[in-house]
């Protein structure tokens, strides 16, 4: 446990687990989205940590990766929120228990 990498990874795993738990247990769509954001950021943290303590910290690969990931996450969050708003307009609720029409 000498390398600080383990600490970062543990924190990231903890954040991922919290995000996963939130996404799976919350019934409010907004909170589920927040959980998903948490999981994404845990993954970003991993990327940065592996880059910083990896074999080539001088190349900016991990940083670029994370920035891209954050940009994609932002877009995704926008889309997700848009979907939630349109569903809310349609059904007057954000309760996921009642959104069960995604089946064949």
């Amino acid at each position, binding site marked *: 446990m000498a390398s600080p990498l383990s600490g970062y990874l543990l924190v990231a795993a903890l954040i991922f687990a919290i995000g*996963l738990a939130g*996404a*799976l247990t919350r019934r409010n769509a907004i909170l*589920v989205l927040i959980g998903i954001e948490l999981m994404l950021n845990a993954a970003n943290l991993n990327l940065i940590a592996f880059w910083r303590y990896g074999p080539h910290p001088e190349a900016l690969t991990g940083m670029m990766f994370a920035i891209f990931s954050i940009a994609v996450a932002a877009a995704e969050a926008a889309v997700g929120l848009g979907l939630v708003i349109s569903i809310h307009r349609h059904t007057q609720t954000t309760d*996921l*228990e009642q*959104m*069960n*029409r*995604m*089946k*064949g």
Partner: protein
Amino acid sequence: MQEGLAFTPQLSASGIAQWLWLVPAVPVVASGITALLKQPRRKLASGLAIGSLAFSLVLSLVAFVHVLTGWSHGYAVREVVNFTWIQAGTANVDLGWVLDPLSAVMLVMVTFVGLLIFIYSTGYMAEDENYTRFFCFLSLFAGAMLGVVIANSILLLFMSWELVGLTSYLLIGFWYQRPSAAAAAKKAFLTTRVGDIFFLLGIVWLFAQTGTLLFYDHGEGSLEPLALGGLLVHHSGWGLTAAGAIGLLIFAGAAGKSGQLPLHVWLPDAMEGPTPVSALIHAATMVAAGVYLIARVYPLMSAGMPAVKFGYGATPALAVVTWVGAATAVFAALIAVAQNDIKRILAYSTVSQLGYMMAGLGAGGVAVGMFHLITHAFFKALLFMGAGSVIHGAHEEQDVRKMGGLSKFMPVTFVTYAIGMLALCGFPLLFSGFWSKDAILEAESLWHPSHGPFYLLVFGALLTAFYMTRQVCYVFFGEYRGHGHAHESPRVMTVPLAILAFFAIALSAIGTPAWPWFRAFLSDHAAALDFHGFAEPGLVMLMATSTIVVLIGLGIGWWLYGNKSPRAQEPDALEQKIPTVWGWLRDRLYVDELYGATVIAFYYWWARVADWLDRKVWGGMVSDITLLFRGWAHLNRFLDTNVVDGGFDKGCEEIATSGGLLARVQNGRGQTYLRLLALAVVILAAILIWSGRG
């Protein structure tokens, strides 16, 4: 026997020849339209039939005038229009039509007599509920008959010939509700079919020998010298050339259609049809088709004729035609003596007269036979339509013994009928039948091989005069013995009678020895008016003979039957004198019974043999094979139900169950899916970690 200058041939087709196909086509189309009409459209149906035939008549007259013009300018008009119907490899199936004096004369006769009979039919069939069907068949018949007449291809001729046979069948069996009519139609169809088989064989042989189906094809047709020469070289056995043998086969077909011995049996029975049909088909036109056919293929029949100094020679084929014709003439006339059905007497007389035509063709050539054909068509149509008028007037009575005295009730019918009867008997000088019959007798008397046919035909003339007198005495003289009150027929029926009666007399003008116009026209010579024709001693003797014979016949008839009005139950006057012979004749010389005992019995026996073969041999084999296949089928069914179906059902069940399980997972909630995803990731991670250890 006069020989004029041979005419220059004219072969190129003129405008009218190009359009000659319309003559048969228009009635056929009219028939097709009539077939689509509803039953109540009676006026339209008869109008179509009469209109189309009138059109054909006009066209035929134009064609006739065209031929006549060519003839009077010294051209032997023979215009042909040929085309290829089917091409198979190097063999062509050609069809075509021909306009020459023979077809032109025949066209005018068929359309003219046919038109009169159509008009007459509107009166005769006025009460019939199947009026439209009748006119549909009549038009089809007229079209087919005209097709026979204009055909330049023996195949086209045969096709029209068979169509004629078909319409004859349909019309004889027109009142198919009567079992006798249905049987008569069947008999006519089957009997003529016997002749047609031989005809078809002749066609095939002719095609094989000459390689063409056309009669005239600018030197390459089967009736032109080139092909005939080839046919003469080829011998077929029994001392016959190929030309003779083919000619005999074709004659068999003609004999079937024209009711010659031994295929005459269908014609008297064909009188079951409506009377206009008897007049049109079984007196004037269809039965003449056989004679016309022989006239058409006459070059084939006469090929290789031995040269004789004076009179007429004969090829074997023509000798057969002559003898069969003469025998038929006497045979049928004998039977006609002892019949009591008014139409049946006329039917036998038709058979007899067809025999005369055949004999005339065989001995004297085309013109002699065709002249009798034309005159006979007019007076026999007249007689049949007169008979129809009598039947109509006497309330559907056909037995001459139950008529009598009708001359008082039906004057127009009586006068016209008498004219027809005198023409048929060949009463001297005034009537066309005298001249045409005389031409035949003259040809027979000059026939080289034998005088037998001459004596037969003279005897036939005696019998003809006798039985016609008997019939007329029974029908028109004495007292009325029928039921109800006899009445004259409507004008639509009597006017055609009068027109035909006029022609029965007027046609004599074109065939007297003094001005043998008809003969000259058909044989492409110029006709000259020459009263010395009467002065030939042989001819005078002949005319005297036939006059005396006819007068004897009329005399005996009047002596036995005149004004006596015998009762129906009373035996016939002749029966009292010669009961045995009378019995034979009344039973039609047992020809039907003979066929019943031989041909038909043989067919029954053969049918039984075939039936036995079918049941025992083929049937046994078939049932054995059936059993085999049934066993095989049972095995297959067992396998199917237990093995294939079982396995399949199990598989289906499994799929359905697992599908049901999986379906529960897909409940539409995103979080459930996410949960499963998380679970899967955990399992994946576990596997990765696990495998990373090793």
